[in-house]
């Protein structure tokens, strides 16, 4: 027993140390990254196989990755096969490899995979966004797909292309699927243009709460100060995340949102009062008042809406600012 245990320990120790020495030597040798003929043949065999066990499956993926990294001529053919594999882990790995290839046919394969949906669509979308050449107009057919998940991703992926699909996106803000409405209003919010403001305002009252979240973000971007009153109303939304999105949008508008926020300070809804005071604090309005007009009744109204901790924090910041200005003057 002792002899067996000792031998096992000694053998494993040797494996660790020799294995590491081999790794260190290979890392120093630039030729070790080159793909030899025999190794390439072995990798092609592995990459084209139909493994049954988990371990062999990932060996296939490794072979595929290695061949692609070495720009082996057999890689595109093998990747094409792997993308349509019924095993989601193989297909997902092939999709990651496609992003590295970046050819036109890679875009087509990725779009086809997006329609089929066997692999996580967010991963396909990530690869489509990093491709060169960029897919651009090839994304437009996704907006007309019968599957709402595909329309959602079509709308989302159009964000970096402000000149493409404006009319279709506006149509999608009235889609039957709330996810599609959310994605289209989010994308439109980043670009503006005719009809966008109206669409964003309309979706602020959408029955699906997450559509209101995306609409709030878009309204902040597209409408600016003119959207502030509508956004301020969302501070009393029934959903926490909508109120948070409205606060973010109002912060983004900045001092121009003040006029819309002041009436909310006396709202019957405590969440709305708190939210309005918080935004006024975050955009620097409270600090300006606390420093320049600490006795202002308006400041008292904000403190009343925001609570004692908001007052203490504001007074501390004002004191700090005063001290640093005095130090600078001295």
């Amino acid at each position, binding site marked *: 027993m002792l002899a067996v245990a000792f031998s096992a320990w000694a053998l494993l120790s040797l494996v660790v140390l020799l294995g590491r020495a081999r790794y260190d030597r290979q890392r120093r040798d630039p030729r070790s990254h080159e793909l030899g003929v025999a190794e390439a043949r072995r990798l092609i065999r592995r990459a084209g196989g139909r493994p049954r066990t988990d*371990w062999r499956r990932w060996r296939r993926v490794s072979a595929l990755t290695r061949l692609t990294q070495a720009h082996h001529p057999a890689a595109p053919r093998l990747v094409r096969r792997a993308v349509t594999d019924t095993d989601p882990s193989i297909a997902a790995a092939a999709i990651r490899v496609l992003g590295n290839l970046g050819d036109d046919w890679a875009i087509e394969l990725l779009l086809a995979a997006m329609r089929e949906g066997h692999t*996580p669509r967010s991963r396909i979308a990530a*690869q489509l966004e990093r491709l060169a050449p960029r897919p651009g107009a090839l994304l437009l057919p996704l907006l007309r797909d019968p599957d709402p998940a595909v329309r959602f991703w079509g709308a989302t992926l159009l964000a970096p292309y402000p000149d493409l699909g404006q009319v279709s996106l506006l149509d999608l803000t009235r889609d039957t699927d709330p996810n599609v409405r959310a994605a289209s209003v989010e994308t439109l919010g980043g670009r503006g243009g005719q009809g966008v403001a109206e669409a964003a305002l309309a979706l602020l009252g959408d029955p699906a709460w997450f559509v209101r979240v995306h609409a709030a973000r878009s309204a902040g971007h597209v409408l600016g100060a003119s959207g502030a009153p509508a956004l301020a109303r969302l501070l009393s939304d029934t959903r926490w995340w909508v109120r948070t999105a409205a606060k973010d949008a109002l912060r983004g508008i900045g001092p121009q949102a003040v006029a819309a926020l002041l009436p909310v300070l006396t709202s019957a809804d405590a969440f709305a009062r708190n939210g309005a005071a918080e935004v006024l604090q975050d955009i620097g309005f409270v600090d300006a008042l606390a420093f320049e007009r600490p006795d202002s009744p308006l400041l008292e109204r904000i403190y009343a809406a925001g609570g004692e901790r908001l007052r203490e924090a504001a007074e501390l910041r004002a004191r700090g600012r005063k001290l640093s200005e005095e130090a600078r003057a001295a």
Partner: protein
Amino acid sequence: MTGDVLALIVAACLGYLLLSNLVSLAFVLVGAIENSVRRRESGSQDYATLASSRFTIPVSVIVAAWEEEAVIERTTRSLLAFNYPEHEVIVVNDGSSDGTLERLRESFQLEPYEIFVRRVFETEDVRAVYRSPSHPNLVVVDKENGGKADSWNAGLNVARYRYVCGVDADTVFERDALLKVMRLVVQDPARIIGVTSSITTARDPGEVMAAPPGRRQVDGGPMMAFQHLDFLRAFFNNRLAWSRHGFMLCSPGGFQVWRRDVLEEVGGYSTSFTCEDIELTFRVHERFLREGRDYRIHSLPDNVGITEGPDSVRKLVSQRERWQRVIDETVWHYRRMWFNPRYRTVGLIGAPFYLLSETLSPIVELLALVSIPLSLALGVFEPAAFALMLGAVAFVNAALTACAILFDDLQSRMYRRRDLARLLLLAPLDLVLYRPIICWARLKGSWRYLRGDKAWHKFERNARAPA
């Protein structure tokens, strides 16, 4: 009569030893497969895209800090430096009486701000919330002392994102730590509700992490090296196998990612236990299996950080007796899962394994120790047989440890060759130099558990050179 008792004790100890080594060997074999699969899967990942894509899921990182003046700045900086497209760092100061908050204030130019949050979890009162003009994704919550679970719950109330990552304040992280674990989540966010990954230990993690991977040294003397081996065994010889077969029962407090809606559903971190991490993992498994839901909790072999380990026997005992207490509390609390097929592999393997290898082991180890003076008193002690047995157990243990070192090195290529050699040489000594300390700590922990002690007994931070 005494001779019969001795024979019974020896038989029980040998039986236990055989069973636990067979189970360990089975876990090592499964762990080897899992390690290889994860290594290949990680090698095929496109980390560059994951790190820059707007479709990568954002994460809220929550760090609970109590009396962490010495390490909090370093830890917070390592969290802010994560290579990740969108994350926020929420540091919760749990009513520290030292200079934890002052250190944070000075280092990150914190200013007090009021924020209104959903109070999903009831916590001790929040005194103030701070933001940093230089680090917009940093929020510091200053609250009354309520323990680590209470602090993490306070952090959860503030967290904005769908996934949360709970970390310890005494751990320094790799820049890619979040990326490494979230790579798995983005593949299947509907099913993967929790992930953790390998961490190691050092006397001064910041000093070790300052060296690039491949040139790092195993910090400190033999005491730290033995703890390092202990961590490797836990992550590579146990948790990989648990993860592969769906009974990963311990997401350690040092680094754990959870889907937030799951935490909200199960009621967040519990303040009723000495420690919260292992209990939460048990609770999530219990709930999801009882309701027959499809889910995964993974442990990955990628090294994501180094945590500070105690550098003296006294501190080590204090830490490990606490760990033992929480294991005893949790295993007993979830006793309905033991051998219960309703809880699948968790009930049939995971929970019984905890019972066998963690809860009962101090008793068996004590019995083994008692058998030595007893056999001496009865005049049946055979020094040669005892030495052979001790050697065999030490080298079986060393061979299993060498497997853990091998898996870790294949995965991370982190440490220098000479440090690997040192670890391998120390492995056979673990049984006689390190295990007795752990055995004592476990006995102490079990005794305190039986007495109902739930105090934290935090070990005092190691002395280090000023930054």
